[in-house]
C-alpha cells in the first residue's frame, strides 16, 4: 500500500485528506502532551499549516504520520516555551504533590515506606497493557492530577528523552526544580499505575 503511494508522489498534498487521516490522532497526542484541548487544537492547526509549507522537503520519505508527529512535537515545545514565559515558576507546590503519606509511620520507622503504599511486585507488564490498547489511557489519567509544568517536564524527559539542560531552558526552571519535579512525578505515577493496573491480579 505504502509502496504504491511512493511511486506517485503527489505534487500538492490534499490537506482535507490529512485532516481526515491524522487529525484525530494528532489532536489526541497533543491533548495528552499539553493537557489543554484548546491549545491542542491550535497545535494541530499549526502543524498542518507548517506541513503544507514544508511538503517539498518530505517527498514521501517514511510515513506521513511520523513526519506530522515530528512537526507537532516542535509545536508542542513552542507552546511550553510560551507557557514558561507567561507564568514563571512560583510556589514549591507547583512542582507537584509531595505524597508525604507514603512515608508516614507511627511505629518508630517514620520516613520508611508506609506499608499501605509500599511497592510490591507488578503482576502485569506494561507490554501486555500496550497490547491491550489501554496503556496510554491509564497513563494519561494518572498524569492528569500533576501540575502542567511537572507533567511537561516528565514527558519531555521520559517520552522525548530530552536532556536536563534543554528541558530547564524550555520550561524556565533550574536543574534543582527539574529534579524535584521528576521525582514527584515518578512517585505519583508509579503509585497510580500500581493502583490502577500493575498491582492488580488480572
Amino acid at each position, binding site marked *: 500500500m505504502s509502496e504504491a503511494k511512493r511511486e506517485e508522489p503527489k505534487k500538492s498534498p490534499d*490537506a*482535507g485528506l490529512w*485532516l481526515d487521516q491524522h*487529525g*484525530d*490522532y494528532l*489532536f*489526541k*497526542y497533543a491533548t495528552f502532551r499539553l493537557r489543554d484541548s484548546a491549545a491542542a*487544537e491550535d497545535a*494541530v*492547526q499549526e502543524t*498542518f*499549516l507548517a506541513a*503544507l509549507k514544508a511538503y517539498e522537503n518530505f517527498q514521501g520519505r517514511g510515513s506521513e504520520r*511520523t513526519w506530522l*508527529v515530528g512537526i507537532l*512535537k516542535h509545536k508542542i515545545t513552542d507552546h511550553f516555551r510560551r507557557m514558561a514565559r507567561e507564568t514563571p515558576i512560583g510556589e514549591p507546590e507547583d512542582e507537584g504533590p509531595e505524597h508525604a503519606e*507514603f*512515608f508516614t509511620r507511627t511505629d518508630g520507622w*517514620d*520516613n*520508611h*515506606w508506609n506499608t499501605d503504599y*509500599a*511497592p*510490591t*511486585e*507488578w503482576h502485569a*507488564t*506494561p*507490554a501486555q497493557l*500496550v497490547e491491550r*490498547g*489501554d*496503556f*496510554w*489511557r491509564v*497513563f494519561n489519567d494518572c498524569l492528569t492530577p500533576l501540575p502542567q509544568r511537572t507533567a511537561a517536564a516528565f514527558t519531555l524527559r*521520559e*517520552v522525548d*528523552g530530552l536532556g*536536563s539542560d534543554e528541558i530547564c531552558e524550555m520550561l524556565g526552571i533550574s536543574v534543582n526544580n*527539574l*529534579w524535584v519535579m*521528576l*521525582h514527584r512525578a*515518578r*512517585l505519583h*505515577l*508509579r503509585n497510580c*499505575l*500500581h493502583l490502577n493496573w*500493575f498491582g492488580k491480579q488480572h
Partner: protein
Amino acid sequence: MGWYDKTKHAVRFWLLRKLPPCKETVMTISQSFERRLSPRERVLLKLHLWVCMWCQWYMEHLQIMRNTLHETGTDIPELDSPSTPGLTSEARERIKQQLVADKK
C-alpha cells in the same frame, strides 16, 4: 531460624536504621536516572537496596515505566481508536477553513 539467618536479619535491621531512610532513598533513585551519583551516594544506595525490598521494587518499576514510555514513543495505535474523543466537528471545520485560506 538458624544462627546464620538470625545474624543476617539482625544486620539488615541494624543497617536499615543506620542508612538514609526510604524517603531519602527514593529521591536518590530518581536522581540516579538524571546524573552520576557520588561514590558515597552509590554505596549508601546499594546497601539500602540490599536490605529493602520495597525500594528495590520502586527502582525496578521506575525503570519499567521509563522503558515502556521510550519504546512506545509516538506510535500509539490506541489513539486511532474512537473510544477517546478526537477533534470536535467545529474545530475540524475551523482547521479546514484555515488550510484552504492558506492555500490561496
